[in-house]
């Protein structure tokens, strides 16, 4: 962005001011702000860097939010948007990140969420934080109770709650239980709860992700109404049409860095332009070469696969999916979080997710009915989970025990484990996958993310599958380990195995797959050979479908 044409001092130019300009004077100074002499900038996050073991989640991120504006934050999954907001709200306390948060003219050092809330910074998370068996009123004042500690004032609680519900346009009694209202109304309760904390800066993380069109519209209009009244908001969203509707400014974050900030009034904020900002990066040498071999035959085919949510059994999570993967082929499934990709994979894998599963599944050209994970493993199907700590590994157990867990029959006779053989197997995979660890007796919990991922892969390779579904196989691991994982995938397909790779990282999908499916809201919305695909095309597929629903 280059707005050199604008006169310095213009209210819209501060985003692009040269560094050596007298910034402080302009931004925090004297009478430029419209609001009764208050500084114009409400929040500035300066050079925020946040590291997790092995990963730099945020790298010198800068964000400026003006009073009374709606500021949108966009970026791919894992770009660092949520991390940034967690830094802002004190979930990652002061001292665990580098950089400064300047809010309302002063540097803030939040040690906990309460500190940021006291200043009026309230975050509404994507997963709603409401207690189902409490009333709306109780939820709104949870941790912020009315009355005295040992004498709660219920009249004040419900009275105030009703007032706030009116403000957000929710026609429900504040004495209704949360579980009895729909998710759209729950979202409004969250906003009312934020207002109850005297919010001055409202942060909404994907507020419309689980809302239908009407509810989404109502919510966005509410934000616009608040804006009229002087409220400042930050909204994180993937739905670009919604952003175009409400946002005054858009900041793009990619790979933990701020890429650019666009102003609705002065810049082109078309979808293509935003998408370009979100995905544009180079792909050189990040993926090992693979010699294409053809084996003939189809490893796995899914026809008309439909899955319903395990709890809300009227909700379709996967809707009539058709897909196939040939032997020796890597097929990618791209899509956003919540598109139903993991649910599809797990429902195929011995019905480990969902209810009322219907459709046909073929392995090696033969129709199979897999009713348990055991069935699936026996039919040579493997699913490598996206959540290696939660669903994949036993962190308190050594590498060797994790390696053999899915195929213990191969290292035991009459249920008695041959420990020597187990050790040999684990050691063999340690060398093959070059897992870095002192010995295979090491507990998996002590390994780095990349090495844990290798142990997880070893576990499923030892189960000797013909078809592997890899769910986010490189999530949260460093570049070097990623490259090694890619090499392992290449080895697998060179042996004639079929690999389905679910990934939210588009470069990875493009770099590794032969064919790409695009999934959105439970449906396959596109299929492209890799030669015809680009990040922009895939992103456009995903987002354009989202927009229809918004």
């Amino acid at each position, binding site marked *: 962005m280059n707005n050199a044409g604008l006169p310095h001092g213009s209210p819209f130019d501060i985003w692009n001011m040269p560094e050596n300009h007298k910034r402080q004077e302009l931004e925090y100074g004297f009478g430029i702000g419209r609001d009764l002499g208050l500084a114009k900038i409400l929040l500035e996050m300066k050079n925020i860097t946040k590291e997790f073991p092995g990963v730099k989640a945020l790298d010198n991120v800068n964000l400026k939010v003006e009073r009374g504006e709606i500021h949108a934050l966009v970026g791919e999954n894992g770009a660092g948007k949520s991390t940034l907001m967690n830094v802002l709200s004190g979930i990652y306390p002061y001292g665990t990140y580098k950089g400064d948060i300047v809010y309302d003219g002063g540097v803030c050092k939040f040690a906990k969420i309460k500190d940021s809330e006291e200043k009026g910074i309230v975050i509404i998370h994507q997963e709603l934080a409401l207690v189902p068996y409490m009333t709306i009123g109780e939820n709104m004042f949870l941790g912020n109770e009315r009355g005295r500690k040992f004498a709660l004032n219920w009249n004040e609680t419900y009275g105030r709650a009703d007032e706030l519900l009116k403000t957000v346009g929710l026609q429900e009694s504040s004495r209704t239980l949360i579980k009895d209202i729909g998710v759209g109304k729950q979202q409004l309760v969250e906003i009312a709860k934020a207002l109850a904390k005297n919010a001055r800066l409202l942060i909404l993380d994907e507020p419309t992700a689980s809302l239908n069109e009407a509810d989404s519209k109502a919510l966005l209009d509410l934000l616009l109404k608040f804006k009229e009244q002087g409220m400042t908001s930050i909204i994180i969203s993937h739905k670009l049409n919604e952003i175009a509707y409400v946002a005054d400014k858009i900041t793009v974050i990619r790979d933990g860095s701020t890429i650019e900030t666009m102003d609705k009034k002065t810049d082109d904020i078309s979808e293509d332009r935003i998408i370009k900002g979100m995905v544009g990066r180079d792909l050189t040498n990040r993926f090992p070469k693979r010699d294409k071999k053809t084996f003939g035959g189809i490893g796995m085919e899914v026809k008309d696969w439909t899955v319903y949510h395990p709890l809300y059994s009227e909700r379709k999570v996967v809707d009539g999916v058709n897909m196939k993967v040939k032997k020796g082929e890597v097929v990618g499934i791209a899509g956003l979080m919540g598109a139903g990709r993991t649910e599809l994979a797990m429902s195929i894998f011995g019905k480990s997710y969902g209810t009322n599963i219907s459709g046909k599944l073929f392995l090696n050209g033969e129709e199979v009915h897999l009713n348990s994970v055991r069935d699936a493993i026996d039919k040579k199907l493997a699913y490598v989970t996206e959540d290696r700590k939660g669903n994949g590994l*036993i962190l308190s*157990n050594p590498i060797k025990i994790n390696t053999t*867990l*899915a195929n*213990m029959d191969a290292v035991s006779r009459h*249920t008695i484990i041959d*420990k020597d053989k187990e*050790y040999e197997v684990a050691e063999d995979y340690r060398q093959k996958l070059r897992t870095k660890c002192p010995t295979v007796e090491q507990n998996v919990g002590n390994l780095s993310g990349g090495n844990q991922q290798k142990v997880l892969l070893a576990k499923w390779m030892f189960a000797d599958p013909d078809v592997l579904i890899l769910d986010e196989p490189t999530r949260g691991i460093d570049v070097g380990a990623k490259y090694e994982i890619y090499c392992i995938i290449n080895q697998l397909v060179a042996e004639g195995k079929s690999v389905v790779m679910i990934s939210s990282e588009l470069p990875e999908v493009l770099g590794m797959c032969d064919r790409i499916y695009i999934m959105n809201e439970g449906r396959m919305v596109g299929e492209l050979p890799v030669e015809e695909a680009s990040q922009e095309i895939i992103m456009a597929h995903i987002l354009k479908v989202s927009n229809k629903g918004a």
Partner: protein
Amino acid sequence: MMNKGKMMEGVKKYTMIIVLVLVTAFFAWGTQGKILLPQNVSNLIAQNAYVFVLASGMLLCILTGGNIDLSVGSVVCFVGAVGAVLMENKGMNTFAAIVVMLLVGLLIGAWQGFWIAFVRIPPFITTLAGMLVFRGLSNVVLEGMTVSLSSETFVKVFGGGANCYVPDLFGMEGFNLTCMIAGTFACVLYVLLQMKNRMAKVRKGYETESMVSMLVKTALICAVILLFTLRLSQYRGIPTALIWVLIVILVYAYITSNTTIGRYFYAVGGNEKATKLSGINTNKVYFWAYLNMGFLSALAGMLTIARMTSAQPTYGTNYEMDAIGSCFIGGASAYGGTGTIPGVIVGAVLMGVINLGMSIMGVDQNIQRVVKGLVLLAAVIFDVVSKRGGKLIAND
């Protein structure tokens, strides 16, 4: 850094053994050595046989995720009551009665296991109910009275009565040579097994423990076995109950460390979701844990009525606490997934030594409870805090 970490791990691994040695030394001083007299060493085993048996079963339950079984004391009492009534009042033959008692134990285990494993009623609730139900039923079966056992075979086999020792084959005055020979034999067997294991490892080129540490460990274990059997020999030889304890300990040590089902207990407690996604039926694992607990409760019931040569409605009270305490003191995690039979043995012995030591010192019963409670709390605090990397206060 690495070395420090290794040392920390070593200290952690042997903490309870060190504590056991210190506590024993303390009581040896506090009782002017009385606690180490042959008779007291012998009593330590005979009195606490049920703890070892119950704790072995309790470990499996705890491994599945810190789940405890509160009903074992009542089940011990109920099984004993049923057996005593059958043998004494109904005139059933001893062998048949034993079979019935084991079946009753299994049935109770299956009953509780069904609710816990398949219906997923929290184990705490299910076994709390069992605790009340079987205590009540014991009273009903015994009609509130004491039933004395007259079957000598039964009492002898399960280590009760006046002569509850394995008969001596040599008849030496004041020294039970059979016991000493058995002890020596155990040592030789242990050394041979260790050597065989090590040689196999070397042959296959696996990593082995350093020679020195292995020798020290072997020497210490043999010394403990020999001293222990020497003490027993100086009294009246091997208590029959010790045979039962040894069988149970060896079988369960083997199951937990060398079989697939044993592995499942650890896996479920370590990460149930991952275990499920590895194709293991986790419901069945819970079921097995409680079924087995019922079985071992029945065995403990038999040991108890044999030792007392009677059945009473109050038997087995607080036994569950002894078993649970031994597991946690012995290093089983309150969250499941870690814990070993050798650890549980150390825990049970530690509890036994504290009981015995305080009794000899004449400490008030109530103070004894206070001490035992605090020891249990300290052990679990140690486990939880060390898992958190030494931080005492959890993140808010």
